[in-house]
């Protein structure tokens, strides 16, 4: 066959490919990073490197015995596993800030990221090699098992082999000195490459075997927040006396009213807020529908955002008025806002933004085009509460505040403060009691579970359903200044505050309730 896609050229290209994966990435990592920079692979890096060596090894099998099906198949399998390895490893660092990560960079990219790229390239190159196999009778015979021969290495093939052989031995030396012999294994963070055996052997570790004691699909992932009927992830102890505080003033229920407004989806209302200027409530569903009312039964003004499209909100969990505008967050602290309009919206903008609306509200955060782009639904990103959801949210004229729901990963309650104009975090802290507030011995605030919040003057009022406690938190220091015992209610969640009352949503037998509670200050 006259085609350039013949066996001889295939072997030449295959040897080159082996060199590109075994000599260059593995060689640079071993010789340059290992012996010059004195960096050793971490526990996961070692196996990513080993996979590359095995892909190169399969190349030598193909050179020696032809592209038999089992070799070709093995290349794809190891490459698929290698892509998983690279992405899994990158996942350990992908949420960190710019340039944060483990080990040195090669061309601005760390080695574990290179792993995903290299294995991805292996898939592409091996796929292209299949064209050689299809066009060559000899290679086809190898592939289908009709021919079984041992082929000599070309001169170039021998050079690549011996360089690779030396590199494999060199990697073995590095593995012996830095990690030791079985059952010793990988380290993370890794130690520097050293040939000082008496010292380095004292650092050999078996800790990776301890990982067999626990298993989970996702690393450091919290349970969902408690939302009645959606995520029933928690059982509450609603007895104030079981909490961290000895005693506090007990607040009384003034009245209980049934809310007649129907939500766009779901029976339970997610959040309530109160606008003191207009003496008006806003009720919001778990699916992005907000309804404004004065009498709890009719909502002449409403807006239902296109909940499904654009940035995912999870379920909307909390709201807060800033002036006459309503801000809303989802459980994942993605926000959107409803800005009260002076004149009717453009019909196209209304169509793009909302599923349904009375025409009174546009997007709060969008500066130019009134629709929900990334700017329209900002991510309220945090540091301490990164792995925590939020069920509570408050706002004043300048700032908005999220209060996290503690979970098995983030064990503290975190208050995060964001400048509304920037939509970026201004300050953040775990809540702690002020020095004037006495706690029971060996107790702290970690087991409080805040399901509603509202800003009142210089305080953030946070209602913990666990121990039925109202925490009064200073807006600047985030210290808990006062606590109050809340009355027992039916499925209480969300908190709003007016000049003279507190409001808490309840839910019983499919009916939404609004508890009016005395305000203690």
């Amino acid at each position, binding site marked *: 066959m006259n085609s350039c896609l013949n066996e001889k050229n295939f072997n030449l290209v295959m040897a080159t490919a082996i060199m590109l994966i075994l000599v260059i990435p593995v060689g640079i990592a071993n010789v340059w990073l290992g012996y010059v920079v004195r960096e050793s692979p971490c*526990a*996961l890096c*070692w*196996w990513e490197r*080993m*996979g590359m*060596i*095995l892909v190169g*090894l*399969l190349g*030598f*099998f193909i050179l*020696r*015995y032809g592209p038999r099906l*089992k070799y070709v198949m*093995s290349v794809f399998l*190891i490459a698929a*596993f290698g892509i998983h*390895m690279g*992405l*899994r*490893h*990158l*996942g*350990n*660092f*992908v*949420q960190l800030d710019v340039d944060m990560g483990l080990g040195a960079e090669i061309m601005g990219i760390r080695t574990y990221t290179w792993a995903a790229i290299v294995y991805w390239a292996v898939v592409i190159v091996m796929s292209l090699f299949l064209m050689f196999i299809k066009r060559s009778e000899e290679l086809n015979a190898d592939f289908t098992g009709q021919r079984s021969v*041992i082929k000599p*290495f070309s001169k170039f093939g021998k050079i690549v*082999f011996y360089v*690779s*052989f030396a590199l*494999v*031995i060199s*990697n*073995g030396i590095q*593995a*012996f000195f830095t*990690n*030791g*012999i*079985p*059952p*010793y*294994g*990988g380290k993370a963070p890794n130690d520097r490459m050293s040939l000082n055996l008496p010292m380095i052997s004292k650092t050999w570790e078996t800790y*990776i*075997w301890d*990982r*067999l004691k*626990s*298993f*989970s*699909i*996702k*690393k*450091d*992932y919290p349970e969902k927040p408690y939302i009645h009927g959606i995520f029933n992830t928690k059982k509450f102890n609603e007895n104030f006396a079981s909490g961290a505080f000895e005693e506090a003033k007990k607040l009384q229920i003034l009245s209980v009213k049934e809310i007649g407004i129907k939500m766009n989806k779901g029976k339970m209302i997610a959040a309530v807020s109160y606008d003191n200027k207009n003496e008006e409530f806003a009720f919001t569903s778990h699916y992005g529908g907000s309804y404004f009312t004065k009498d709890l039964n009719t909502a002449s003004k409403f807006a239902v955002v296109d909940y499904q499209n654009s940035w995912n909100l999870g379920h909307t969990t909390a709201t807060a008025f800033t002036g006459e505008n309503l801000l809303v967050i989802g459980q994942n602290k993605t926000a959107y806002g409803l800005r009260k309009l002076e004149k009717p919206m453009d019909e196209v903008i209304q169509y793009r933004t909302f599923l349904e609306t009375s025409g009174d509200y546009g997007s709060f955060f969008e500066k130019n085009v009134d629709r929900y782009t990334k700017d329209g639904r900002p991510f309220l990103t945090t540091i301490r509460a990164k*792995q925590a959801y939020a069920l509570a949210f408050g706002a004043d004229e300048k700032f908005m505040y999220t209060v996290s729901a503690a979970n098995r990963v983030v064990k503290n309650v975190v208050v995060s403060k964001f400048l509304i104009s920037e939509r970026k975090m201004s300050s953040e802290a775990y809540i702690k009691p002020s020095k004037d507030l006495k706690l029971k011995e060996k107790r702290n605030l970690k087991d409080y579970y805040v399901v509603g919040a509202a800003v009142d003057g210089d305080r953030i009022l946070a209602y913990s359903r666990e121990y039925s406690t109202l925490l009064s938190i200073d807006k600047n220091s985030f210290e808990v200044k006062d606590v109050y015992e809340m009355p027992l209610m039916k499925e209480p969640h969300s908190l709003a505050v007016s000049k003279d009352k507190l409001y808490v949503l309840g839910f019983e037998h499919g009916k939404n309730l609004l508890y009016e509670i005395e305000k203690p200050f």
Partner: protein
Amino acid sequence: MEFLTLVIITICMYLLMFKPEREKLAFGMFGAATFILVGMWFVTTFGSIFGNGNY
């Protein structure tokens, strides 16, 4: 375990170059090295199959 795997790979390469008629043994050694690779990867990541990215 890394050292053991590289010893197996070294033996495999030796067979490929100097004892090519022992193909089955060489491929078996490749299989053993791959088995250790996959096994040790899962031992090392047993605490979580996925990293802590935002899924």
